[in-house]
């Protein structure tokens, strides 16, 4: 398993420290703070009944290292715990918060469960809910990218559970056959809701699955953002050079529940969670930044404060906004509204004006 950072933020013996500008490193941490702030706020809002649903990223923030290894015009297909990748690309927190409230400013027009969002301007694809479907789509997109814009690569994220899906099977297989520049990133947090990895597959390691598709694989400590960045860099290189896809298994753990509807105490031990808390990717990276003198107690506190305030303000604003207009029930089904949807829209108007 590839690893660079020790828990205390020192460099692992024998590993090489990547050469990344301080500013960039700080940006990664900055995004981590944003992600974790959103998690804390999101679940509170859900508990208060102000938003309908929350999906957690906490513990999986090192995925930001993958995004950092890409160019900004490479495409990203997220699963649903990769908000960090979008924020790394500069998605405004305001957009995320408006989305959480599913209000009239939500780019998704209030049509999705909170947490399932995409953003065209940053090539961050709107995710599904059916597990795994994005995997083969990413293969197709990467193939088209290679055709239209040689050197472009596509990254796709998915969980350990998703490796059992049909679209995983065809996605990795098609990429192997066409040598498509797809970077498959399995965020193996060892659970699919309650189902542990041993019940998901008898394979010793998820990365073993790459062999059956003739695709090179790499297993990496998914809580080590430097290692994540490094393996992604190599994969990107391969992709840009026409050497085809790469499969990355990022071994990690979800520190929170599956979603706001989940009670993880039913299926996992507190002890496990505590053990993994010690491997928290943010703490480890913070230690590294602190050791390097890039981050201090003060600058860190300032970061948390900044986002706490900002997100609070955004929440206040978002909460005040109206929900999307009734017409959004009917638009975007097709590019143009067909007769029957016009009729149905008239019907809804009649009933809502009645109310």
């Amino acid at each position: 398993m590839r690893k660079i950072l020790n828990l205390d933020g020192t460099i692992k013996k024998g590993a090489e420290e990547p050469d990344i500008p301080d500013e960039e490193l700080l940006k990664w941490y900055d995004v981590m703070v944003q992600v974790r702030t959103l998690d804390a706020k999101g679940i509170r809002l859900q508990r208060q009944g102000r938003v309908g649903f929350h999906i957690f990223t906490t513990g999986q923030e090192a995925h930001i290292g993958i995004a950092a290894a890409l160019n900004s015009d490479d495409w990203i297909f997220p699963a649903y715990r990769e908000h960090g990748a979008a924020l790394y690309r500069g998605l405004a927190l305001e957009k995320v918060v408006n989305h959480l409230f599913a209000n009239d400013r939500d780019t998704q027009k209030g049509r999705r469960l909170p947490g399932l969002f995409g953003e065209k301007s940053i090539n961050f694809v709107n995710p599904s809910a059916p597990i795994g479907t994005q995997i083969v789509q990413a293969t197709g997109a990467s193939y088209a990218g290679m055709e239209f814009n040689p050197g472009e690569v596509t990254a796709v994220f998915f969980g350990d559970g998703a490796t059992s899906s049909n679209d995983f099977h065809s996605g990795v297989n098609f990429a192997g056959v066409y040598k498509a520049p797809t970077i498959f990133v399995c965020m193996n947090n060892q659970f699919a809701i309650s189902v542990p990895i041993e019940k998901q597959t008898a394979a010793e390691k998820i990365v073993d699955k790459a062999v059956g598709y003739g695709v090179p694989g790499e297993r990496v400590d998914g809580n080590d953002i430097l290692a994540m960045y490094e393996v992604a860099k190599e994969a990107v290189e391969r992709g840009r050079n026409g050497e085809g896809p790469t499969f990355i298994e990022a071994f990690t753990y979800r520190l929170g529940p599956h979603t706001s509807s989940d009670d993880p105490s039913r299926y996992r031990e507190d002890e496990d969670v505590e053990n993994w808390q010690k491997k928290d990717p943010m703490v480890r990276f913070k230690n590294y930044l602190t050791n390097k003198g890039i981050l201090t107690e003060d600058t860190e506190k300032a970061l948390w404060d900044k986002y706490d305030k900002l997100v609070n303000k955004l929440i206040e604003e978002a909460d005040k906004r109206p929900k999307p207009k009734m017409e959004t029930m009917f638009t975007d089904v097709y590019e143009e509204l067909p007769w029957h949807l016009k009729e149905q829209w008239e019907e809804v108007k009649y009933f809502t004006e009645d109310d």
Partner: protein
Amino acid sequence: MVEMNILEAVRDAMDVMLAKDETVYLMGEDIGPNGGVFRATEGLQAKHGVNRVLDTPLNESGIIGFAIGMGLRGAKAVPEIQFIDFIFPAFDQIVSELAKFRYRSGGQFTANVTIRSPYGGGVRGAHYHSQSPEALFAHTPGLKVVVPSNPYDAKGLLIASIQDPDPVIFMEPKRIYRAFKEDVPEGEYTVPIGKAEVVREGTDVTLISYGAMLHVAVEAAQIAAQEDGINCEVIDLKTVYPLDIDTIEKSVKKTGRVISVTESPKTAGFGAEISALIAERYIEYMEAPIIRVTGYDVPFPFVLEHDYMPTADRVLDAIDRVWNY
């Protein structure tokens, strides 16, 4: 008798059948220690064993294909699809395999599989936790489609489905999983598949529905009676496919006015089949257009869900239209 809601009734049906018949097996995602995301299988693995109640990998065609294989080999397999919105990866195993095995093998090979799945809107579930695809299965010869609307039927129909040698899609109205309790007999009993029930007698307008929407129809019928003195008859189909034509016939010949209430998109939904049957067989009795109250022809929305779903209001408007035609 024990007071139960629909969810408890469903669980009890499985519990009874697991205890009674050792060829009954359950399989699905998170149905083991987690007891299912709605807790429909809570406690069943602990009670009946890890071999009988299987947590599966995340693959719906796998779940159904595996269940079919067990069925072929003599088991009564009761797979759970976590939300019916996730049944589509299994569509080929269901329509090409499960539905056709008996026929294609000349009756030699059959698989007793009862696919349980929560369906329907009204739970703020958005596109992928709200759908109601019964029409797709009703267009598939070889399947039976059963949709209970209350605890008594839920248990009796599920036991009947598990015992039925033909494959059954058993759709559970999750919106009313915990909405109300009723007295439900202990132990084994069945409610017959293929039989509808007149749940409210009336003379003026026939409302045909099933599952969660049945309650919307009943509510509208009550309001129509109270406020407008219109006396609606309400039919709970219970089995959507093959449906009970006799109960429909009797009612529509009496009232001459028909409204179906279903929650999936309108076009080619199951309401269309109800209308078509009536327009083909009993049109001479019709005194008004045959109306469908349905979801709209859009992917299931999120914040506008309430406006998407059929409501008593919308049914009342339809009643008004057929009554004052």
